[in-house]
């Protein structure tokens, strides 16, 4: 979230609620509606790090609103973030832990663990499929949203393929 907010502020100063709306419209249906509290907490941290600064803007009949803008240090941090390669996806290994350790604990049968996990992944896949359909229907112009969902589906497919490998090898 830090970098997303910095990027938005690099475009133009904004207050918290505007940032929330911008995130929603850019990422569309694939993005969980960001919590305004979380946005303010992150802005507070960015301010403490010297990456953003806030000015109070007076409003008629309302409390002042804080408008945030990016600092030179913030712009530099953003550039560094954009320039460096991004970590690849890391193997989500909590399930793998369960699978490898299961026989030691005597608590679970590996076959049953794999089967349950497969059904769970497939239900997530179904959910993503429905999400993609909804995105296509309600916001077809938002390619970012559709691509995010497709990316999530491809990751899930890889998880399922790996699960199959685990089942073959560890049976």
């Amino acid at each position, binding site marked *: *979230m*830090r970098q*997303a907010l910095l990027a938005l502020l690099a475009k133009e100063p904004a207050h918290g609620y505007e940032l929330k709306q911008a*995130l*929603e419209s850019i*990422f569309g*249906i*694939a*993005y*969980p*509606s*960001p919590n305004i509290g*979380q946005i303010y*907490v*992150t802005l507070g*941290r960015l301010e403490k790090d010297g990456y953003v600064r806030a000015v109070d803007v007076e409003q008629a009949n309302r409390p002042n609103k804080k408008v945030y803008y990016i600092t030179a240090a913030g712009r530099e941090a953003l550039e560094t973030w954009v320039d460096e390669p991004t970590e690849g996806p890391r193997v989500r290994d909590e399930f793998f832990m369960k699978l490898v350790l299961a026989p030691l604990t005597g608590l679970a049968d590996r*076959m049953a663990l794999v*089967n349950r996990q*497969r*059904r*769970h*992944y*497939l*239900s*997530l*896949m*179904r*959910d*993503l*499929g429905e*999400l993609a359909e909804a995105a296509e229907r309600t916001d077809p112009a938002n390619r970012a949203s559709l691509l*995010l*969902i*497709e*990316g*999530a*589906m491809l990751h*899930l*497919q890889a998880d*399922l*393929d790996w699960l*199959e*490998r685990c*089942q*073959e090898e560890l*049976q």
Partner: protein
Amino acid sequence: MSDTPVVRVVNLVKIYQTGGLPVPAVRGVDLTVEAGEFVAITGPSGSGKSTLVHMIGGLDTRSSGEIWLEGRRADTLSESGWAVLRREQIGFVFQFFNLVGNMTVADNVELPALLGGASPRHARERREYLLGELGLADRADAAPAQLSGGEQQRVALARALANQPRLLLADEPTGNLDSRNTRDVLRLLGRVHRQGQTIVLVTHDARVASMADRVVSLLDGQIVDDGAIPRVRRRPAGGAGDVVELRS
């Protein structure tokens, strides 16, 4: 009548015996598919998926066990008995398409309906509908050899559905498709399933499998899992998704 399962196999076994050692491909499978059900079969390469659906469609003989289709014993049928049953009740999509090479795409798709007794007009309308749904309307006059693998595969699906069969058996129907064409196939499968089509489909593609009512997992010729895909509700109804998670 609708209480009779469309497919019931009991302790089905297939052992290939080609010269040397016998290869057990399917080892004691019990499977029941009710009318209107959509069952996906998954499993690693060589786990017996194709062998199983070929036996259910009468394209491969069983070594032992029983196959019942619509309440009628089928494994004891003669080859010509199977041919009639297939023509009347089963649509089959092969892993490697099997289109008739010297007929156009349109004729390939219309043929099963014509053989099944449909009027030429009805066969043509059904063909136009199916090819349209699969984005192939403009390929109707082509020969199969002029099509890409993915196009041939979609023609094979159209052909299998031409006759509105009681049972659709499909072996990796999206194996050669990119994601846009897969979406067309998924949409058509979803639509015919909602209209009551019974489907048994082999797939590695989780998007396809996730549309099924039930998933059967094969390993080394045996069923290791058979059950419904649970419903998750990650999203509050009407709310946004959570595909991306931006960390703070």
